[in-house]
């Protein structure tokens, strides 16, 4: 029998994407749609922070201590200024700080994910292709790395960096150090996935064939391996993005994250946590809420992506 839903005209590219299985599974999951929209909104707001934010919280000259501890939506007793989500101990607008803070958090998250992705995919390819001792070594290191808790690895990397970088440059380097610290603690999953896929491809006839006719097998394999691992790697990367954002927050909570003059969400929470009992709830609540929402929406998206790309689970 014929299925009636076949469109009468050959569909355009967009329409084809819209009609694909993935897009359909996306459309039919309202939670995923909401989460994705939320994640995109948060990301967009973070990226466009300088355009949206009423203040620049990173510019110390713009801060007026007298604005400190303004309640949300209530004019400050001294300066009369109104802050939507209140202000913190430095008179920093919480709303702007959150925008800029999520920008920092996302930047650290995305960059560290990219960092671990490049390392992980590279090492995975090498391990799978070269084999032998190199493979054993890489995979063993990956095992150890996986079992060494990310927070501890990040703390160690951070500590080493602190020791190596001259104090004068530390502030500028903090972001980079965070990226490396978090990135180094998450590469092993990529390596494992890519290695598995490489092993499968390596034994396929075309690799031998390419070798026989004198082609370098590498590029050929890359062309086959990369599309195969793109799905799982994307899933790991998405979930790791949420993880990296949380990790950055935890490091900041432990006091080794972003400097207070360029607060990330985690740094904001660390500040806010001091005011848990003192009544300035907005300093803790709003950044925490945004952090959780950000991580949650990315996680929801990643969760859906994993199921969608794994047809067996559908």
């Amino acid at each position, binding site marked *: 029998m014929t299925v009636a839903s076949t469109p009468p005209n050959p569909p355009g590219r967009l329409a084809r994407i819209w009609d694909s299985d993935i897009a359909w599974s996306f459309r039919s999951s309202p939670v995923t749609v909401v989460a994705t929209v939320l994640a995109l909104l948060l990301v967009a707001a973070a990226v466009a922070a300088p355009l949206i934010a009423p203040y620049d919280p990173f510019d110390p000259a713009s801060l007026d201590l007298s604005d400190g501890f303004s309640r949300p939506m209530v004019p400050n007793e001294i300066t009369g200024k109104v802050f939507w989500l209140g202000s913190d101990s430095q008179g920093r607008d919480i709303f702007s700080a959150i925008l800029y803070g999520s920008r920092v958090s996302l930047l650290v998250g995305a960059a560290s994910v990219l960092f671990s992705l490049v390392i992980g995919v590279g090492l995975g390819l090498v391990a799978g292709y070269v084999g032998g001792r190199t493979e054993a070594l890489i995979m063993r290191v990956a095992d150890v790395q996986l079992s060494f*808790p990310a*927070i501890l690895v990040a703390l160690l990397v951070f500590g*080493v960096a602190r020791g190596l970088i001259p104090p004068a440059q530390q502030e500028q380097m903090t972001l980079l150090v965070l990226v490396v610290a978090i990135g180094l603690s998450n590469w092993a999953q990529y390596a494992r996935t890519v290695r598995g896929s490489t092993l499968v491809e390596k034994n396929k006839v075309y690799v031998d064939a390419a070798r026989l006719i004198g082609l370098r097998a590498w590029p050929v394999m890359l062309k086959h391996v990369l599309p195969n691992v793109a799905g799982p790697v994307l899933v790991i990367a998405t979930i790791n993005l949420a993880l990296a954002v949380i990790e950055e927050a935890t490091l900041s909570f432990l006091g080794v994250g972003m400097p207070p003059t360029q607060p990330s969400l985690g740094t904001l929470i660390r500040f806010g946590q001091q005011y848990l009992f003192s009544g300035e709830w907005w300093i803790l609540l709003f950044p925490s809420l945004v952090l959780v929402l950000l991580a949650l929406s990315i996680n929801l998206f990643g969760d859906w992506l994993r199921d969608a790309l794994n047809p067996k689970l559908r």
Partner: protein
Amino acid sequence: MLAYILRSLMQGIVVMLAVAFIAFSMFRFVGDPVVNMLGQEATLQDRAELTERLGLNDPVPLQFARFVADAAQGDFGISYRQGRKVSSLILERLPATVELAVLSAIFAFVTGIALGVYAAIRRDGWIANLVMALSLIGVSLPTFLIGIGLIYIFAVELRWLPSFGRGDTVAVGWWTTGLLTTSGLKSLVMPVLTLGFLQLTLIMRLVRSEMLEVMRADFIRFARARGIPERRIEFRHALRNTLIPVITIAGVQLGGVIAFAIVTETVFQWPGLGALFVNAVQFVDVPVMSAYLLFVAFVFVLTSLLVDLVYVALDPRLRSGNPAMAK
């Protein structure tokens, strides 16, 4: 099988050495213990003297060799800060962390497996979906926020549970336990929940997806085709196969429990190794820091060995001596 276990052991030793090197080198070059030991009022001459006495002027390889040799004998030196043997400090703090970590792990495992199995079996039920949604929130909540939230609710507002510490402990030999007193048990509740929550959600999600995967396996279909009751299929055939990959990852997660204990112990002022480590970092107490790192590595080696043994117990393919056949 013996070769298999021996190989794990060898790998463990290599890992320990590598970590020893990291522990040694990073703390050798990060921070200056001399200033912290001598306090604010020390003179320059005092500092030079102490540096010499601690051997901090010796060649680095010599310092490392000395470090490994001492560590192998359980001698991590004297804590700069407390003036006590690091080994006895670690032993003193060990029970608190072990009780916390083991209870959290048990809590995470039991609850995680139960919820994961439930979510897999009733995969379309609303409770299962709710549990899955909550688990995602759990993954998205930083540990320290959970701890702070629990303290606020249960210690400050409701005053049901103590906000910090271990409560009263009972000494059993050199071990101190909080499991035998009411206040000790009450003190455990929030830290265990905080520490176990993330692991719980991870294990639960893992169990669910592994179980769904296993439930599609041919042997499950064959068991169904033989008329084996569904309950039996789920709990006898599917669960055991599910648990094999779960145990690998869960074994790895135990390391995570130890590490997140740093955060949990900090929030709840729990007198364990994590708090000892954080305090040591504060004071650049090198011997304590390196001993802690080695301790974490040791826990890793131990758990992977345990995981290997559990594997052998669970998977007959390994027992017959050909580990290559098990995937």
